């Protein structure tokens, strides 16, 4: 219980003080969380998905509880890039933690414009959301095939020197292929998984629970799928992998690191336990100490498959 654990990790050129990143869409733009948590204790914070124009999001209900998880269909509600740059990004940049900006669009041009303008800011990385299942256009349409990923990353790569993370969808036949496509076009990292496309039904009203009919499944329910996909992506590419999906505890985070994630994101856990955004890092340090690991980075990819 004595020796301190070195929690720092690198995702490509970006150094993080610890491997726990607050996931996009489950942390707003940090303002509400700043009230109740010391954000400087996070490895990084990833913004809610930002689009060029403001978006109102989908009609409610936008959430359905499921066994060990939840479906959401927020639909990228956000104030748009202008207001984000004016009000939200400056706030995030002052929190003493790395800032990853998650961006989404309908067209390749949208993504280009977003990357061009974010390149001029102080953010630490850009995460291309090619995997939101809750909007009609763009997004997952790009992310679900290797060709779509390739085209999109090729379009934006020349426009920014920021580390470019490509967030992949699990709703695909082979995440190894979409990861390779991202790598081939110069992505600095892939992050996965976004939510699994799912549905909840109210048998009494004979209606989908979500007004959007379908939504994205997150939480512990998806952890086995996420771990498998992170491991597949890790084996498929040489660039770093950022892993997520159902992390509730430090030991969960360790599992993702072992499967090859250089860092992890925590999303849904923080909705039910606000302290999860930092306690996962604390528990990870405890876990490292208990298992005689002095550098958390040593866990990355250390899984020994049978």
């Amino acid at each position, binding site marked *: 219980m004595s020796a301190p654990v070195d929690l720092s990790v690198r995702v490509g050129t970006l150094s993080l003080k610890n491997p726990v990143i607050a996931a996009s*869409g*489950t*942390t*707003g733009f940090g303002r*509400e*969380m700043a*009230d*109740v*948590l*010391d954000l400087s204790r996070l490895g990084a914070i990833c913004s*809610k998905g930002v689009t060029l124009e403001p978006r*109102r*999001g*989908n*009609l*409610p*209900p*936008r*959430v*359905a*509880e*499921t*066994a*060990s*998880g*939840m479906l*959401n269909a*927020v639909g990228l*509600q956000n104030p748009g890039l202008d207001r984000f740059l004016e009000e939200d990004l400056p706030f995030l940049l002052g929190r003493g933690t790395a800032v990853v900006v998650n961006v989404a669009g309908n067209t390749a041009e949208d993504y280009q414009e977003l990357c061009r303008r974010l390149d001029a800011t102080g953010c630490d990385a850009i995460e291309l959301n090619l995997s939101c299942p809750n909007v009609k256009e763009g997004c997952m349409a790009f992310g679900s095939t290797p060709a779509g990923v390739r085209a999109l990353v090729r379009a934006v790569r020349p426009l920014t020197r920021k580390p470019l993370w490509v967030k992949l969808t699990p709703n695909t036949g082979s995440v190894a292929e979409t990861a390779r496509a991202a790598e081939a076009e110069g992505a600095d990292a892939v992050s996965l998984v976004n939510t699994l496309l799912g549905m909840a039904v109210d048998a009494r009203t004979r209606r989908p629970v979500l007004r959007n009919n379908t939504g994205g499944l997150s*939480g*512990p329910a998806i*952890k086995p799928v996420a771990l498998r996909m992170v491991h597949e992506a890790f084996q498929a590419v040489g660039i770093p992998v950022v892993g997520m999906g*159902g992390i*509730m*505890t*430090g*030991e*969960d985070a360790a599992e993702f690191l072992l499967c090859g994630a250089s860092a992890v994101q925590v999303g*849904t*856990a*923080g*909705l*039910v*336990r*606000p*302290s*999860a955004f930092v*306690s996962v890092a604390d*528990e990870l340090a405890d876990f490292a100490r208990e298992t005689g690991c002095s550098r958390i980075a040593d866990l990355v990819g250390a899984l020994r498959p049978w």
Partner: protein
Amino acid sequence: MRTLERIGTVVSSGFIAPEQARLVVHAPDAAAEVRPGQFAMLDCTPLPASSDAAGGILPKDAAQRAPFLRRPISFCDADRVAGTVTFVFRTSGTGTRALSRLRAGDRLSFLGPLGHGFALPETGTLVAVGGGIGVYPLLLLLRDARAKGLGTVAACGYRSPALAFLLDDFRDVSDATCFASDTGGLDFAGHAADAFADLLSRGLPGPVSVATCGPAPMMRAVAARCASSGIPCQASLEERMACGTGICLVCACKVKAAASGEAEYKRCCTEGPVFDAQEVAWE
């Protein structure tokens, strides 16, 4: 830095009517802090006894939450001296059923008090109009209004006399009460909104202001009646929630932007649950 998660100890639990469970929870900080109309996100996963884990569910077992999400429940009452808060809720599903199984001595994790509650007027009479389980947040409201020296009137509507609850509690905190039942047998036969209109037409010491909570059609009727009489009206809305703390954006409520009058989504959990009834875009 605010503390969001609190671990209270159940002081008593039981049913006050069929499917209506009450939990009294010792949680002095929350009792001191809570304003009427606020709510808590209750954790329905049983917590191990305190000998097992100090801070709540064991980290190792955190993935075993069932049901997974917390449930939003209004503060129905608070006793600042005893340091207790009261939740009353209909046992409609898995989460509320699990909560109703808590017994004295059990621990309960909740986030809160959360949300933007009712604003108490400076003077005059506060009329609280509630329907069904919508009456619950109105009890603490009337208690605090009376403590502030306001006149207090309760108009509560129930499906039937057998399904009426908290009548004595409301009598305790109100100058006047009118209990309505769809099937008759109480003070008024009909809906709470009609009872309210009836009360209004008979005159109340002004200035009158209204707070309402219940089914949307009822609140819409109350809001319309208030609008036509120039009476300020606050309405407590309900939407499905995940975080309750403003970060996930799933609890969108349609309200008219103050400036443009255009409908936009606000977060029920932080910008609400209580809104100016004239702002609400009633469906």
